[in-house]
């Protein structure tokens, strides 16, 4: 595998995104939404209604349970603990946003090449199928990662500014780092690889998009489950999930290479 060939095709993809910035709008829109929504729920609504979240009995129970699992919540006031817990859970939205957004970029990736009849010349080069597909995945991943990181910076800055004292520091934990630094990227890569695999077999980018977005469901279940107090995922579990998703990504690369039939693409695409 030659990194330079992957970089060359990635560069081409990124230049294409740059020439049509509207392509990355879904990612931007979702990250903006994910950045602001937690503040509406955790900060604005309690201020508007005049009721602290910490006074809600259900939240009290959930936070009490979370305190036993998440050491970062120890030593915080009830209000700060409730906010810190919720802001931590909303970090999961930053896993969902780039997946949903970047999948739209990736879904069009191979189908677009097929529709534009640009895939055949690419297949005449020494580039291997794995290089081609990895380049496509990384090209969709990188812009969404950058946008996600910008969103995270804004998110953390707003937490420092608007949340109760101590909440910002409580968010800077190893758990958060694993969540946004490992689990998020590997979840995105796995979802994108799946999208690319499907994209190479279908005629319509929407088909690839619809199937791949299903991957978001488990993450939503985790988010809802934690907020509802059904369970709390610890750092160790997050780390294991990240390793698992990394392995899934590698398996999906092999799967998508096997699924990518050069011959069918050349002979059945008119």
């Amino acid at each position: 595998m030659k990194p330079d060939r992957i970089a060359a095709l990635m560069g081409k993809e990124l230049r294409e995104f740059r020439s049509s910035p509207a392509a990355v709008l879904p990612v931007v829109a979702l990250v903006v939404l994910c950045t602001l929504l937690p503040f509406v729920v955790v900060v604005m609504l309690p201020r508007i209604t005049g009721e602290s979240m910490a006074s809600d009995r259900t939240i009290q129970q959930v936070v009490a349970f979370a305190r036993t699992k998440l050491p970062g919540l120890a030593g915080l006031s009830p209000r700060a603990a409730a906010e810190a817990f919720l802001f931590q859970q909303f970090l999961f939205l930053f896993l969902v946003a780039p997946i949903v957004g970047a999948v739209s970029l990736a879904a069009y990736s191979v189908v677009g090449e097929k529709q534009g009849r640009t895939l055949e010349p690419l297949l005449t080069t020494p580039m291997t199928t794995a290089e081609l597909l990895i380049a496509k995945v990384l090209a969709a991943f990188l812009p969404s990662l950058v946008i996600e990181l910008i969103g995270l910076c804004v998110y953390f800055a707003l937490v420092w500014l608007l949340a109760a004292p101590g909440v910002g520091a409580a968010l800077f934990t190893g758990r958060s780092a694993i969540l946004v630094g490992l689990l998020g990227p590997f979840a995105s890569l796995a979802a994108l690889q799946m999208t690319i695999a499907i994209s190479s077999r279908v005629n319509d980018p929407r088909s690839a998009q619809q199937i791949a977005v299903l991957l978001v469901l488990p993450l939503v279940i985790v988010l809802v489950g934690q907020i509802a107090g059904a369970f709390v995922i610890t750092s160790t579990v997050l780390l294991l999930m990240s390793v698992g998703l990394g392995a899934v990504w590698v398996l999906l690369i092999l799967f998508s290479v096997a699924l990518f039939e050069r011959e069918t693409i050349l002979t059945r695409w008119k």
Partner: protein
Amino acid sequence: MISAQHVTRRFGARVAVDDVSFEVRAGEVFGLLGPNGAGKTTTLRMLGGLIPPNGGTVTIDGRPFTRETAAALRARIGFLTETPGLWDNLTVEDNLAVYARLFDVPGAANAVERVLRLFGLWDRRTDRVVLLSKGMKQKLALARALVHDPQVVLLDEPTANLDPQTARTVRDLLRDLRTQRRAIVVSTHNLDEVERVADRVGLVNTKLIAIGEPATLRRDVFGRRLRVRLMTPSPPLPDLAAVIGRAGAQDVRIDGTALSMVLESPDRLTPIVIRRLVDAGAEIREVYDEEPPLEDVYLRLLKPPVAPA
């Protein structure tokens, strides 16, 4: 350099290419001729390692396409695909630069500049491809096929969409590539183009119908005919036809003030026939071997055989 031996390719029940064999040497332009749907593009794709044959083998310098050799062999091939397949939103230069990197071209920027200048695209290098005319796109696709200076060049309809001047540039380029010892296969149904550039042609219609130098094919199909053009139709041409018939000329035809004939032994009989005509009072303007256009050869060979009554 390129060898296809008994190559067969089926798509489901349909046979696209059936037991085709030929070789193309370094420094040779080989024209692959045939009607639409004759299997030309499929043959080129098999030569380029894009699709494998169901039967037979394709080799480049004796090395067959396998999973292990495919990438290395493709690196030696410049392939102009049926449609230009350019990235419309990228600039002319970027389209080439990406391919130069994909082919691991050392000094990619210089290679890109070389082909841009070669095809007269240097001044348009910063334009987005979507702004180019069809002809310009075809030139860019050709430039892309040659950016890595390949030893084997496979061109599918290279002069499609090109104006006569650019088409001539492409033909000149093919001659240059031939002198640089490249092995070149040109797939086309443009007979004029093949006639002008190809050293040998292969006529395909699923099967390989004929192969050889254009002149040889003409002779094989129509025989070697001598044509004698006279200054005046006097003495009457039927009388002259009878004279040369007695001298050994066969299948004598009269065409205006010209006589056309088949000579079994041209080197021996041509001086005799000319002397008899002069003796009979004919004033001869010119004598030459007839060269029917390649189009006639093509149409004759592709004509389905007449079923016996």
